[in-house]
């Protein structure tokens, strides 16, 4: 690289822009978390100051944990997300393997059919989905949510995973076949472990919209026992609008799990994107 493109002024400008934008991205989140640890007076008097020993206050968290059943909501969200994620990855990988490995009549057509769902959002079918769930008695169950999220996640999973499975060496699979492995064993023993990085990428892309979704929990499972964290936080905040401590604490509690997951997976996510998984 020539030195002309790396003048100090240019580097400085680049960092200045990036720092400014990072501040814009992080400031609102930090503001909420910081203030959730303060007393009501301090929230209003000095919103930008860090909590000090004098105004440190956990009353907001106490209210949230007493009033809302956040542990239950959290558990619901976790069950829905983990089970849907597992099904999306398993079924998605199986279908992707069939599409990328075997030549059969209608292969391309099936690929296009499954890819349709990437562009057309499942939400548009809500009216009929609700009727389906009512008819099968699944309204207000976590199963309804799991089914919907599995269907929602499959198209992208199949699409990305079949791109990756095409890269798995044929020689390896054929060697397995000569050794007498069944097609199922070849898939589970040979191919799945090799596409693990791609699976992680798909997992992150699938997980975030499921955890954050408000629409389907609101429509399919709004009962107290099946509320997810997102819906629970939405309703709780709506009821406690004037209790700033509680609202800030509820927001912080809703932010933290996603943030922790993101920081754990961020390297995987970024690697997945930059390695061309979604190009």
């Amino acid at each position, binding site marked *: 690289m020539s030195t002309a493109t790396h003048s100090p002024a240019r580097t400085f400008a680049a960092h200045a822009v990036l720092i400014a934008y990072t501040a*814009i991205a992080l400031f*609102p989140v930090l503001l909420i978390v910081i203030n959730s640890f303060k007393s009501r007076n301090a929230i209003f008097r000095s919103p930008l100051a860090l909590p000090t020993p004098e105004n440190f206050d956990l009353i907001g968290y106490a209210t949230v944990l007493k009033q809302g059943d956040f542990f239950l909501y959290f558990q619901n969200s976790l069950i829905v997300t983990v089970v849907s994620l597992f099904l999306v990855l398993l079924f998605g990988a199986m279908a992707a393997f069939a599409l990328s490995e*075997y030549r*059969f009549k209608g292969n391309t057509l099936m690929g296009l059919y499954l890819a349709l769902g990437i562009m057309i959002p499942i939400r548009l079918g809500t009216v009929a989905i609700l009727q389906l769930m009512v008819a099968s008695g699944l309204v207000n169950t976590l199963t309804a949510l799991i089914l919907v999220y599995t269907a929602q996640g499959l198209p992208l999973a199949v699409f990305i995973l079949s791109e990756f499975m095409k890269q798995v060496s044929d020689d390896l699979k054929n060697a397995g076949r000569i050794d007498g492995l069944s097609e199922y064993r070849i898939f589970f023993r040979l191919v799945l472990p090799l596409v693990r990085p791609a699976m992680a990428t798909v997992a992150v892309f699938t997980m975030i919209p499921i955890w954050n*979704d*408000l629409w389907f929990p609101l429509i399919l499972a709004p009962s107290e026992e099946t509320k997810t964290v997102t819906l629970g936080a939405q309703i709780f905040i709506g009821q406690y609008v004037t209790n700033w401590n509680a609202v800030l604490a509820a927001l912080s509690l809703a932010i933290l799990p996603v943030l922790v997951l993101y920081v754990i997976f961020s390297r995987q996510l970024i690697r997945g994107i930059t390695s061309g998984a979604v*190009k």
Partner: protein
Amino acid sequence: MVTETARSKSPIRWHIAVFLAPAVLIYTLVMILPLFGTLQLSLYRTIDGVRQFVGIDNFRTLFGDPRWSASFWNALGNNVWFFIIHMVVQNPIGIALAAILSHPKLRFAAFYRTAIFIPTVLSFVVVGFIWKLILSPLWGVAPWMMDLVGLKSWFTPWLGKEEYALTTLGLISVWQFVGIPMMLIYAALLSIPDEVIEAAEMDGITGMSQFWKIKLPLILPAIGIISILTFVGNFNAFDLIYSAQGAMAGPNYATDILGTFLYRTFFGFQLQLGDPNMGATIASMMFFIILAGVCVYLFAIQTRLRRYQF
């Protein structure tokens, strides 16, 4: 290869069906059939408890009845504006950030990337309320910040004013999602081979002109994908408006978009009862709009973009 051809002669390869079945079944049952079910429902109406086929009457009501059509056009217009804000603000910012980030010798690039992407992983509910609090005149964080740069007099409760509310929500959504175009463009920029860049530098094309003349044409396909993703996402949006402004999409429906309009129609609000058939009609219109957008992209834009193979 020998095994492959031998295999394809065997009559039925059950394992293919076994591999495909679960995904295809769930996808068809929970996604495709309901989509068509919704299209079908829009052709029926329940009159005195009996479901009747009414053809395109529901669509006629939606466009012909002044109350319905006013709401529909209002929601559609707002949705178009919402989309324009994303195209004009979110995508250029995303591209600019990616261009800066992709500089090969930039330090802390991973940190910036991770931090700027954080809002994208938060839920709409959280984002909606965070900004509602920050922009609230009660708390006073926004006016205080504007005072720092001497613009305090410009502050108004933006989310509460009809003329600003939608634009404000659009910008909040931009704040949340700028990470997506940034990442996709970043990936596209990284995949440009060094030889191309070096050749450009040999010819004396560096800095800004290098970006405009060399890199931008090469990342146009990625920009096309971002545009269509933005389009689908925006015309399907609901959560942010619902959590910040409620189902009524206030003030005075100024922030009503197709998603909130669908929700209100389907489930009813205040005194109006929910109407599944009109809801399905609106969902069908959204389906046609999104389908039209996707087709325009696939047939008119994507085929004309020149792709370079390295």
